[in-house]
């Protein structure tokens, strides 16, 4: 877990051939407190990744007309394990699957909102390597991953399986903003966006089960981007 003070130590390598896009991404990352470095070609990206040991790579799928997936595969073969966020104008499912197979950790389709990018970057940087835990706890909230049961303080929560999955995802990303698209992709495994408020009503329903009147709300909405589950007071 990263403390706020060490954020400026985190280096993110942006491999992107369009200067405007690269500048915008870098500016956004800087405003979030990261250090950003830009490489404009796959070769330069590879070299920078070897030299700088960036915490995260944001790689455009097409670099001057050349597919960047082989570059990612090379990185992986060389033992560089930094998470890679593939950014692509190629929206087809096949392209996405190939991007993830080549060693990408997440796939974001252009055009995207900068908030979406920020949320994904945060999620990738904080990704826990420990997936073997059988219980999760955030503040008063406890999840038993084997019994698929949840409780807030002393009160057992009566959740449907889908609601449990949603809560588990929020808990795993507690303290981070998760976007509607991330929830649809990771909880429901859909990559289409039927309508924007669909995720909201699911969250609303979950909220009503989590918070009794008088309880401090656990899930907060983040303007224009998504939701955040807070560790509590």
């Amino acid at each position, binding site marked *: 877990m990263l403390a706020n003070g060490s954020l400026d130590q985190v280096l993110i390598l942006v491999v992107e051939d369009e200067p405007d896009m690269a500048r915008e991404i870098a500016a956004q990352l800087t405003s979030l407190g990261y250090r950003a470095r830009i490489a404009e070609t796959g070769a330069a990206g590879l070299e920078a990744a070897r030299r700088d040991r960036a915490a995260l790579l944001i790689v455009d799928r097409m670099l001057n007309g050349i597919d960047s997936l082989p570059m990612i595969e090379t990185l992986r073969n060389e033992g560089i394990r930094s998470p890679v966020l593939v950014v692509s104008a190629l929206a087809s499912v096949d392209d996405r699957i190939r991007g993830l197979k080549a060693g990408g950790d997440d796939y974001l389709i252009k055009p995207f909102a900068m908030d979406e990018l920020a949320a994904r970057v945060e999620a990738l940087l904080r990704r826990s390597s420990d997936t073997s835990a059988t219980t999760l706890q955030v503040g008063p909230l406890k999840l038993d991953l084997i019994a698929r049961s949840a409780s807030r303080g002393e009160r057992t929560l009566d959740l449907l399986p*889908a609601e449990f999955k949603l809560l588990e995802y929020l808990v795993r990303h507690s303290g981070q903003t998760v976007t509607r698209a991330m929830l649809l992709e990771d909880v429901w495994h*859909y990559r*289409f966006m039927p309508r924007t408020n*669909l995720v909201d*009503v699911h969250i609303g329903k979950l909220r009503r089960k989590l918070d009794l009147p008088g309880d401090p709300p656990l899930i907060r909405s983040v303007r224009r981007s998504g939701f955040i589950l807070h560790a509590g007071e």
Partner: protein
Amino acid sequence: MRASELFGTATFRLAVFFALAVSVSTAVVFLFIYWQVATFDVKRLDAILVGEVARAVTQPEDRLKRELELRFTSDLRRLDYAALFDNTGKLQYGNVAAIPKDLRIDGAAHIVEARSLQSTDTGTEPAVFVAGRRQDGGTVLLGRSLYEVNALRRVVFEALMIGVVPAVLLALASGIIFSLRMTRRLKIIHETTLRIMRGDLQERLPAHGKMDDLNYVASAVNLMLDEIVRLLQQIKSVGDNIAHDLRSPLAAMRTKLERGLVADSSKELRAAAECALGDLDQALATVTALLRIAEIESGRRRSGFTGVDLAQVCANVFELYEPLAETKRIAFTLDAPVPLPVFGDFELLVEAIANLVDNAIKFTPKGGAVAIVAKMIGDRPAVRVTDNGPGIPAGERNHIFKRFYRSGKTRHVPGSGLGLSMVATIADLHGFDLRMEDNRPGAIFEISPS
């Protein structure tokens, strides 16, 4: 057309080949006839003469002379030779001066050059001779000029030449005529094709007249052109629609940004930018939806087809939309009692049914009812999404699956207008039928394998 061009055409070469084939086959037939005529007559003559000589050598001399005399009187054309020589070789009677030197006296037929006795002509002419030895040592000589036979041969040969040459010429001429006609038609087709290529898509290849092979191909090409024109018009109208649908949010965005720029406070500017961002998102959503439709239409996703349970698809959609229906106080039900295995793409089918359910919930007023039914209807699995909302007016039912079509009644409800196009595209990819019926009130959408 230049001669070299004509000779280069496939039709002309075919005609030449045809003419050659005709000539050769005619020549073979004619040669056979000629050979038959030439040999048959000579053989017949030989046989007769051999028989006569065989009889003559045994006959008494006076009787033989009488018979020879008779022979001369009936031979008006002076074609017959007949003579009797004594044992010294001296002519006793007849019209041959001497026994031809190279004629063997063996009772068989031989062709030799003979000289007539009394005739004024000096030349010789080929004749068939048969000579036989008599018991008294004399020689009987019978013969017949081949003049007649040769004349017949000449006539036959001339007749053959008169037959073959016109046949060959006729074949060549018809070849030229056909290739000219064919080349002219091909040239018209070629020129028309060039005009079409340059963009004149209303042009059509000439395909009137009787249905020969060329017209058959031409009418097939014309049908293809019709289809291309139809598709182009469709694309054009889609393009127009895209432009129109993107124009509205973009225009709104422009106004908002403009107003934001002249705003006094940064708060107003921020509000304008935020509003403009919303418009931009709407425009991008339209573009994304169009790209998705294009991707699905390209059919590449069919490679990812597996066995899919339609009932499970419906259950997933139901789970996804239940909270939404609840907040709108719509009675939302799922009736999918048994697995309905089909071959397809799970996620796309979820998307299709989700779009139908989304529409149903969007257009059904508070307190209404929406249902998903996944059942065997008849002998095939079918998914029905029903609602009791306003339904679709009869006049608009043909248009609803068109891109960007939005019912006049629902223009105020936000959406890209691409939902049903997406459903239609996904159904099409799966080879499923998508039908719409009246629920009185409301609408029923049904997807089923055809």
